[in-house]
């Protein structure tokens, strides 16, 4: 089975190539799509890359969150697609209301760019993004953000059951050491450090590949259980 993925390119994205390379490494056929265009039909995975978008004016990710491709994400998720937003992509998913809470200025203040260790929490077990990844697994990933501090007005209760990755040592004041967040379905993942920049030994770590490989494994496994009736209409029309 051919796995197809789309990577949305925003004005200011700079991580789209890294994301496409990482997805290709685990078996996806990847296409780029502009954020102001329609999403391609029949893709099983959609990625929002890191970098910037529209200068990140006013609030990071706010302007990009109203782009055509982003407005079409709820229908794609409903149709069974997996969605990952990395760094600025995570900010866009939050601004679009597809993930809960907010991302704001790091505390103490400052841009953080360094390698961090994150640990897979038990919550990951309910998500395709951590399919077959043991809780307690540690990943070594680079972070690079100024507005990467996760915040939820309800405190820890607001993120219960939604945090699949936690910082081992909290670098930016994120609530509950949240490094990544899931939606209720488990199919939408926002992650602040960069798994795609840790996807080859030459980059200093390849542990980020575990996330993309898990998604590919889950899609291949779940495909065996799919019948014609529960495949999204757009997927059927585009074999």
């Amino acid at each position, binding site marked *: 089975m051919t796995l197809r993925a789309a990577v949305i390119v925003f004005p200011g994205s700079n991580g789209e190539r890294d994301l496409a390379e990482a997805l290709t490494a685990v078996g996806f056929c990847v296409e780029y799509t502009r954020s102001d265009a329609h999403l391609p039909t029949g893709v099983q995975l959609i990625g929002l890359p890191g970098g910037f978008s529209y200068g990140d004016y*006013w*609030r990071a990710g*706010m302007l990009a969150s*109203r782009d055509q491709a982003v407005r079409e994400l709820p229908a794609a998720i409903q149709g069974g697609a997996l969605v990952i937003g990395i760094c600025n992509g995570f900010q866009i998913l939050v*601004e679009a209301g597809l993930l809960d*809470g*907010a991302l*704001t*200025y*790091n*505390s*103490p*203040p400052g841009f953080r760019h360094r390698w961090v260790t994150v640990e897979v929490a038990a919550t990951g077990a309910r998500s395709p993004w951590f399919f077959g990844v043991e809780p307690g697994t540690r990943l070594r990933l680079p972070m690079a953000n100024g507005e990467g*501090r996760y*915040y*939820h*007005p309800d405190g820890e209760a607001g993120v219960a059951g939604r945090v699949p990755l936690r910082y081992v040592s909290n670098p930016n*004041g994120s609530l509950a050491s949240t490094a990544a967040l899931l939606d209720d379905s488990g199919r939408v993942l926002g992650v602040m450090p960069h798994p795609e920049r840790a996807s080859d030994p030459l980059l200093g770590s390849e542990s980020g590949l575990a996330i993309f490989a898990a998604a590919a494994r889950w899609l291949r496994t779940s495909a065996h259980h799919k019948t014609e009736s529960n495949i999204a209409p757009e997927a059927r029309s585009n074999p």
Partner: protein
Amino acid sequence: MAAASALIPVEVIVTPRPGVRDPQGEAVQEALRNLGHGPVEVGCVGRVLRLSVPASDEQAARAAVSRMCDELLVNPNLETYEVRVRAA
């Protein structure tokens, strides 16, 4: 004849919600103290947006701007806002 729509000048001030940590404010406060401005305290750092809104009166302009804040400009998890109608 219905009242003609005019462009009403409005200012929106967006600030961090009380209780939400404000690292921008902390950084500016530290810089001011380092410059010798004593125990100055920065309340918060926010944003101002000035715009002209087509509306029949001030109340309609305020309502229109509130909708803009709810739809896009303000993240209620983090921020709060105030709408001021400016003298034309």
